[in-house]
């Protein structure tokens, strides 16, 4: 039984209960407060108000990664770039942490010798507009708690500050380099390695 018919039956029941007989009328009285698609008027409109938000985002569209090998690194100057691209809609911070604080080989070194070779790390950040941010540090200052301005984890608020958004801009890089080794301690022979972890986070 349709809604209109149900309303009509209730009205008729009430009228008959009161002993008054009423002739059945049409459903034009059924339209108050509701809109029936199957009854005239047949058109109407509903307005749905939608509100939404888009949060700021920040990450790497192309993260720095890869491996660079430098044989006999102690007997010549060397350098290598690891390019990357940011995808940050606003200011950001990029931080770097060195696992070893330099290139490290296994074993222990007696007096006069060393198993840790120094090298330098340069961080360059390019933004959509405006000058880039750039800083350099020794890898020794990039270990956990190191004194470099961009040492640490960006998620903790560490890192080199980039003042505005950078989205898919080329020219950002991590550059590693070293001159001919001239330290007072002798580098022991062997294979050396280090890992740099580069992180990014939106900055206030």
């Amino acid at each position, binding site marked *: 039984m349709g809604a209109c018919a149900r309303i009509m039956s209730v009205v008729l029941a009430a009228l008959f209960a009161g002993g008054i007989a009423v002739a059945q009328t049409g459903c034009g009285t059924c339209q108050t407060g509701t809109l029936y698609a199957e009854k005239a008027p047949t058109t109407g409109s509903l307005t*749905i108000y939608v509100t939404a938000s888009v949060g700021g*985002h920040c990450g790497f569209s192309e993260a720095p990664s890869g491996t660079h090998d430098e044989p006999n690194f102690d007997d010549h100057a060397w350098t290598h770039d690891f390019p990357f691209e940011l995808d940050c809609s606003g200011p950001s911070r990029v931080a770097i942490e060195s696992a070893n604080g330099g290139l490290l080989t296994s074993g222990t070194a*007696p007096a006069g010798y060393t198993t840790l070779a120094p090298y330098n790390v340069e961080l360059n950040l390019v933004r959509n507009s405006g000058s880039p941010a750039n800083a350099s540090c020794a890898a020794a200052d990039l270990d956990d708690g190191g004194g470099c301005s961009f040492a640490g984890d960006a998620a903790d608020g560490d890192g080199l500050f980039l003042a505005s958004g950078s989205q898919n801009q080329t020219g950002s890089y991590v550059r590693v380099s070293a001159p001919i080794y001239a330290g007072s301690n002798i580098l022991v022979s062997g294979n050396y390695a280090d890992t740099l972890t580069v992180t990014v986070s939106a900055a206030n």
Partner: protein
Amino acid sequence: MKKILAVALMATGAVIATPAAAQTVSGDITITGSVAGKCLVVTGGTPAGSSFSGTIPLGELADSMGVLRSDVEADFDTAAAAIDIQVVCNTAAPHVTVDANEILAQNVATAPAGYARRIDYEANVTFDLTPSGTNVVTNDSGTDASPTGQTLSGRLASGATNIHIDGDDFRTANATDILVADTEYEGHILITVAPSV
């Protein structure tokens, strides 16, 4: 049901939030390299070079009787102690050789019976190790036909002279042999230091 739902939508605004897509926020860079085994001269030769040298002047070799003087060993050791040789190797056990060559009169080809143009001796080369200790390698010019080779038991000490030379048993074929006259008696001690065998 459909109609009641339509009224509800008119009364309030709908709020839609879309979750942000996950972004890459870290990257790892690895740097590797190598240092080859090598030995370098620090003092006693061209710095960072591959050779060293020194001179032990013994002066007059004969005593008043014309035979080899008995104090030539003392003079040899005194003069040798003044030679400053420091060689560094970056390997844990460098290999060394010592080859003592006789002292010979350079301008006299032969010596008749009762005379001598050749002086033999034993060369002792001491290598200082770190953190302590030494290795001594010996070679005799008269009895050892070939160089004496040895792998050191540790790294060469650094920072100061670490190769020392002294001589023993200076002798002619016969103790009574008269040394032939020559202004040029010359001998050599050849020492090699290599990062490994």
